């Protein structure tokens, strides 16, 4: 599968990224010779992160006598890689706790991700599989694909969510493919790879949302969701996902989902290897850890969860929906919660008032409130900085002279950050000396008022500031629209490019793509000296199908065959439709033996496939020719020719067979 869709997302520079320390660690681990000390130092510089990391290390290592109290100890116990990954994951929470997509429910997203993280860790401990701390991070980050799409395309993804919010996974992924040529699970896998997390993480994130754990189908060992025991990372993540869903379920959760969850949970208990009561206790323990972590990370969590009574809750959900249908649903459309960026209505603004003197602060607050503004308060510069970044007020009114971080320092700090630059800053000062005033304006202050302030003058100046705020908001809107247009254009270009390379009937890549891919693979094979093979395929007696049953039937056959072929082909192989009934599979890196095996696989699968049409089951077969790159071949054209010849021989030899091109065939101009 090509990854250019992800490349485009990455190029926007708007993918979620871990903050500060997380970025540092990412950079460090991308060099091969990073030292444990460097990582330890980077983490220790952030006291909040250190605390959280130690908490995690201690909860992951249950049963150990000595608590872990330093990063160094955590590194010894868990290994530097795990410690680095944990730091990375935790710092993402800090940087992406909120975002700009109005319809994306950041609270629920993080609540569920945290639930998944804690569940993954707890289940890993219980089943004795995987590394608990790693499951924590995998669980926390597994859903990052949706977060990423919401960050890069807030409007488009927002609309997608609004339209398909309640739909099932398949519908959402389909819509994502249509809009972005990539699904959120694929995005997640790419991001995790970018961050240097283990390959297995990406594999797990692709699968974990698909059906709830259920017994494996004895007749089809590769059926989806089948699980006889919890064996690997993917299994663990799937079970964590189920437990997480149960934890965040609430009155809005539908009856059908409850039923599915209840069944899944019953099955989980059965394979948990312990008494049902004990497994429920494990899950309750997970739920209370979830609440604890919610407090530490500032993420909302839920109340007590009754794991024992899921079927009962399913019943309740059914009753609730019946009641609702009975009533006339007169619900207004819920307005999406806009993270106000300079949204000024009726002159009322959100003002952050800062003063270290309590009575002065109260006075200021009351004056502002009386004028109709919404007021948040802070008693020192540090607190004010934090609040300003979290709440994005329209305006800050701050005293100059404060201990630690004073008004000037606060303003300078805010102006360094992009979200802080748009805040209107009004300084209160007792000083009137020229140098002081100049200094104030130099640090980015918009206006100043001398203390003790005349309330009417203060409010008049605040009102004047509103004009600037409105202008800024308009500018920002314009910028965002532009950005959206650019993103949309990119998406459109991508779609057009893809369409030009896609066969509309079957959805497979077309001949143009195939030829490009062939040259590419050929060049790569020349460079790396790795083998390359090609399988050409032709549907037998296709003309007859058209003649006997009409072209619609023929189309149906083509679609079915295409479906089978793409299901059978692996990630490294490309399947293309290059002619009316001709297909090609490009196997980069495969030698003749491997390609022949693949061809035989395809042949038998097609032979076994039934294609229903007008109430009758039809069957088709294919003739396949396999050719492997050999000495003497000058270009990919030669390889194609060889495969083509082999197909010809297969047809001649009775059809429904695989023929491998030999040296002698390559030299033949025409077969006998």
């Amino acid at each position: 599968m090509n990854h250019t869709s992800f490349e485009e997302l990455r190029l926007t520079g708007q993918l979620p990224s871990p903050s500060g320390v997380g970025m540092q660690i990412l950079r460090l681990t991308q060099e091969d010779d990073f030292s444990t000390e460097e990582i330890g130092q980077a983490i220790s510089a952030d006291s909040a992160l250190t605390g959280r990391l130690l908490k995690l290390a201690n909860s992951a290592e249950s049963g150990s006598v000595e608590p872990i109290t330093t990063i160094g100890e955590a590194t010894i116990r868990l290994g530097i890689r795990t410690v680095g990954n944990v730091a990375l994951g935790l710092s993402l929470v800090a940087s992406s706790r909120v975002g700009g997509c109005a319809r994306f429910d950041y609270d629920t997203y993080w609540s569920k991700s945290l639930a998944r993280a804690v569940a993954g860790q707890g289940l890993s401990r219980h089943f004795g599989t995987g590394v608990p701390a790693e499951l924590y991070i995998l669980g926390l980050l597994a859903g990052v694909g949706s977060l990423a799409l919401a960050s890069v395309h807030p409007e488009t993804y927002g609309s997608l969510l609004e339209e398909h919010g309640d739909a099932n996974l398949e519908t959402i992924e389909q819509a994502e493919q249509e809009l972005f040529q990539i699904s959120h699970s694929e995005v997640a896998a790419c991001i995790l790879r970018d961050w240097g997390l283990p390959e297995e993480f990406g594999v797990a994130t692709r699968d974990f949302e698909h059906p709830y754990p259920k017994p494996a189908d004895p007749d089809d060992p590769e059926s989806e969701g089948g699980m006889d025991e919890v064996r690997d990372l993917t299994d663990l993540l799937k079970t964590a996902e189920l437990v997480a869903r149960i934890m965040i379920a609430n009155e809005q959760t539908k009856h059908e989902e409850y039923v599915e969850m209840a069944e899944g949970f019953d099955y989980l208990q059965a394979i948990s290897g312990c008494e049902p009561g004990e497994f429920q206790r494990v899950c309750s323990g997970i739920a209370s850890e979830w609440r604890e972590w919610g407090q530490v990370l500032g993420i909302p969590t839920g109340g007590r969860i009754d794991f024992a009574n899921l079927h009962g809750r399913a019943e309740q959900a059914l009753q609730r929906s019946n009641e609702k249908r009975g009533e006339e649903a007169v619900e207004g459309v819920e307005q999406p919660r806009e993270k106000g960026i300079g949204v000024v209505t009726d002159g009322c603004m959100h003002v952050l008032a800062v003063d270290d003197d309590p009575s002065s602060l109260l006075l200021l607050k009351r004056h502002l409130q009386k004028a109709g503004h919404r007021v948040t308060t802070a008693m020192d510069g540090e607190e004010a900085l934090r609040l300003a970044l979290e709440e994005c007020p329209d305006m800050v009114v701050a005293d100059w002279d404060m201990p630690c971080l004073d008004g000037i320092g606060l303003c300078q700090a805010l102006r360094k950050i992009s979200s802080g630059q748009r805040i209107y800053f009004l300084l209160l000062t007792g000083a009137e000396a020229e140098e002081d005033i100049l200094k104030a304006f130099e640090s980015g202050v918009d206006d100043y008022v001398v203390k003790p302030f005349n309330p009417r003058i203060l409010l008049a100046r605040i009102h004047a500031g509103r004009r600037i705020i409105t202008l800024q908001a308009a500018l920002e809107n314009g910028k965002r629209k532009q950005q959206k247009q650019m993103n949309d254009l990119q998406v459109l270009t991508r779609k057009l490019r893809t369409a030009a390379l896609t066969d509309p009937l079957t959805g497979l890549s077309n001949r143009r793509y195939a030829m490009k891919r062939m040259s590419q693979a050929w060049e790569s094979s020349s460079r790396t000296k790795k083998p390359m093979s090609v399988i050409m395929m032709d549907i037998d007696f296709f003309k007859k199908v058209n003649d006997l049953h009409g072209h619609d039937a023929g189309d149906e056959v083509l679609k079915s065959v295409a479906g089978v072929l793409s299901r059978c082909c692996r990630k490294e192989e490309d399947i293309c439709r290059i002619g009316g009934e001709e297909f090609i599979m490009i196997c980069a890196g495969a030698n003749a033996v491997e390609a022949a095996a693949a061809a035989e696989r395809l042949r038998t699968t097609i032979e076994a496939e039934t294609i229903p049409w007008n109430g009758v089951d039809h069957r088709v077969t294919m003739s396949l020719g396999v050719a492997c790159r050999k000495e003497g071949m000058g270009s990919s054209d030669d390889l194609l020719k060889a495969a083509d010849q082999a197909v010809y021989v297969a047809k001649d030899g009775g059809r429904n067979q695989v023929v491998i091109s030999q040296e002698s065939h390559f030299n033949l101009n025409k077969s006998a």
Partner: protein
Amino acid sequence: MTSPDGTPNFDPAILDSTVIDGLRELGGEDDPGLLLELVEMFLDDAPDRLKEMEQSMAEGDLDTMRRAAHTLKSSAANMGSVLLSKICAEMEAAARSEDCSKYAEMAPDCMLAFSDFETALRQLS
């Protein structure tokens, strides 16, 4: 001192009653307790500022001397003080020009002015 109708008369040298009226008006009907709340807050905090001034004087910590005087000056002015905030302003200036002896000289006046101001404020409740 009170006038015939019982409302306290303030010595304008100590307390500017227009400021007090303004604060009363700010609270208005929605928050009638605002004035007293502010007074309480001020009387709660001010002694700490005075203590800071005293301690920093003893330690020769000019910066704290200046900041404590500055803060008290502002908060006292907010509450309508006249003499007290004036003295604090002068002490602030003294600290800024590193004149420790002047600062120390004015300290007793400051304590007195605060005492008078406090008495005046207490009459409000």
